[in-house]
């Protein structure tokens, strides 16, 4: 067991964890942040994307011990207030169907805008290539990212 300290969505957590524990399972099963889902286990789908110290990571590809001393933001802690502009844009543009890829897609999109506040459609499609969606055909997701960009969605 290893003792770690992680700040998750502004809440300070201190836990004993096994070295093999993945960050996504730590978040879901120990901290209760089940809003971050597991989609593929092999870091291909991006459903489990969270921010680790402000940068997006696939939390199935990070060990909990690697997050020691870090700040993690999940979809549940993204909004500073009621909505984050990206969340609002995803709802308004119907950038979701089943919703399972949505938390990771939103977290990756926020990171995309923090690197490139005004991406072109092509830059959005390239930038989000690591996040798979099986329902929507991606079209509305691109529109949502554009809408969020227009409203300062990088914050």
């Amino acid at each position, binding site marked *: 067991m290893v003792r770690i300290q992680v700040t998750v969505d502004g809440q300070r957590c201190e836990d004993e964890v*096994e070295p*093999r*524990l993945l960050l996504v*399972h730590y978040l*879901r*099963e120990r901290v209760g*942040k*089940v*809003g*971050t*889902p*597991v*989609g*593929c*286990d*092999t870091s*291909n*789908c991006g*459903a489990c994307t969270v921010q680790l110290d402000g940068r997006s990571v696939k939390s199935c590809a990070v060990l909990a011990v690697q997050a020691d001393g870090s700040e993690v933001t*999940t*979809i*549940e802690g993204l*909004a500073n207030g009621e909505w984050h502009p990206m*969340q*609002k844009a*995803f*709802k*308004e543009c*119907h950038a*979701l*169907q*089943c*919703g*399972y*890829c*949505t*938390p990771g897609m*939103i977290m990756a999109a926020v990171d995309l805008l923090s690197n490139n506040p005004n991406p072109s459609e092509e830059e*959005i*499609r*390239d930038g*989000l*290539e*690591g*996040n*798979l*969606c*099986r*329902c*929507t*055909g*991606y*079209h*509305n*997701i*691109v529109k949502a990212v554009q809408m969020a960009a227009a409203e300062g969605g990088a914050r």
Partner: protein
Amino acid sequence: MNDVVRPVMQDAVAAAPTRVDGRDKVTGRARYAVEHPVEDVVWAWPVTSTVAKGRVTEIDASEANGTEGVIAVLTHANAPRLGETDDAELQLLQSDRVAYRGQVCALVVGETVESARAGADAVRVRYDEAEHDVVLDARHPAMFTPEKVNPGFPTDTSIGDPDTAFAVAAVQLDATYTTPTEHNHAMEPHATTASWGADGTLTLYDSNQGSTGVARVMADLFGLQVRAVHVISEHVGGGFGSKGTPRPNIVLAAMAAQAVGRPVRLALGRQHMFSLVGYRTPTIQRLRLGATTDGVLRSLVHDVWEQTSTLDDFAEQTAVISRMLYAAPARRTTHRLVRLDVPTPSWMRAPGEAPGSFALESAMDELAAACDLDPVELRVRNEPDVDPESGKPFSSRNLVACLREGARRFGWEQRDPTPGVRRDGRWLVGTGVASSTYPARTAPSQARMSIGSDGVVTVELNAVDIGTGSRTALTQIAAEAMDLPTDRVRLRIGDSTLPPAMIAGGSMGLTSWGSAIVKGARQLRELVGRRDGAIPEDGLEVTADTAEEVRAVSGYARHAFGAQFCEVRVDADTGEVRVPRLLGVFAVGRVINARTARSQLVGGMTMGLSMALHEEGVVDVQHGDNVNHDLAGYHIAAHADVADVDAMWLEEHDEHLNLVGAKGIGEIGIVGTAAAVANAVHHATGVRVRDLPIRVDRLLGRG
């Protein structure tokens, strides 16, 4: 009769209500199957066979049992005995027989998912291995004629003398097409949380496309009354057919919970989904089209060879599309099946029509070229007056209108038919078209509707929202039928204790559920009317059942139609295929919510694009396995594979369908897309690819 008024424009999409569950889904509050809080819960993980055929001779669980956190190891020797059901894939851990590689041969229960997985890794299984047979071949000696094809169609049909008609036809096309194994891969893996009550009741949070049937099957398997089984499916992360019936996850979770006396969570890993939850069978399809020089079909023969497992006969209805799409006086369709040492195939979005349309609509494109005819015009010339096999009139059929409107919007008229002559730098450019169709069906459902003294209407039925937006659309249907604003309607779905209803499948969820709600609303309004609008303190309630009207035989052939137009660019040096434009124009009856409908159609077309270019389950012949069994090796379309995909529909009024007037839209979007892409690739390069997916090695060196 139907009349086409105008294509529905973007303003209809903008005006449609947004998802009622949208906020929960963008904030991470939506709870899926293994996310509902349950006390004292443990985890299970399956051990799967590493041979494709044989018997398990020994399972050594000693190391697993000694692994920290492992609570139990279930095998065929100690697992609870299950009752009989129709689905042999659900007889889990009941025998030592191995029918395919990847079949469950043990289940480890641990305090955490990590300990369950570590325990599973430590289980040693020994086998008496037999020689396996996993390759589909049309000449396989064990090919047989199944009794029927899904879901109840005749296996073979024949009208006239198609062989003679073909032999004497002025233009003959005889070509064979293949499609590979394809996997549904909804983003939420199949998952269940199971807990047994002290009173012997079984509560299951489960990811499925309809829990009425799931509860019934689970009751049969575990020897329970249906009312002792409670299945809750509040949010479901997609299904695409693979969650239409119970899959191993729910049975294993319930067995494990019974064995250890604690609630159990089981979320299958993505790798498990390549063998444990069904897939689309690979197909071999031979098309013979005989036509006049004017392109009028005289003979249409569609022969199909496909696979099933040694456990169960699953016969996909691949050639059924060729029974109704075009006129031809002489025609035949056949299906042959072979039982291989593979998992049982299952339902995947537009089962039958998706692979069948690739063959038929590619063949029609080849015929158009052979007749020197425009492919749109060829289809128009073979438009039937009535359903060619049943002789019934179509309740509405707007294929030609979809083709014409699509051609106009796509800019088809300027098309030079010559293949392989348009070049833009490195890119060879081409366009293609294909027809889409899918049956418009309705299934019996019930809805309980009540109105309180506050005027709020509560609608309860066991529908489910697997991502399509049914929660939103059903709220709209109920509000309209009650003549109330949507905020006066409360909808409860996704719970097997609610009135029984159709699954979200076969493009009949909304039509079936909506019909029950419309009928219930009529009954409720009549009840309120008889009391002059006075609603008693404890409210009024009705339960509507559509079984009678749904089962009444219709005098009409009922199908949705569409046309898909595609532009491709093929790199002349590398063979890379890009799809800059894909346009679908559909005629699907009434559209309830333009926003969710458009997303369904665009999503279906994108899955069709994915089928055309990426998706291929590769068989490991030596080991009887899948070569590619994760999302790194099994490619599905990603953001950057998709460019301008657009869907629209014609306004279509059809009073012969159901109480909603809708045809269902979940599947038609994937029908025809792959052919439209392949036809465009031919137009761009001159290379006819008859085998999906359209890989670079199938293009290079053939131009």
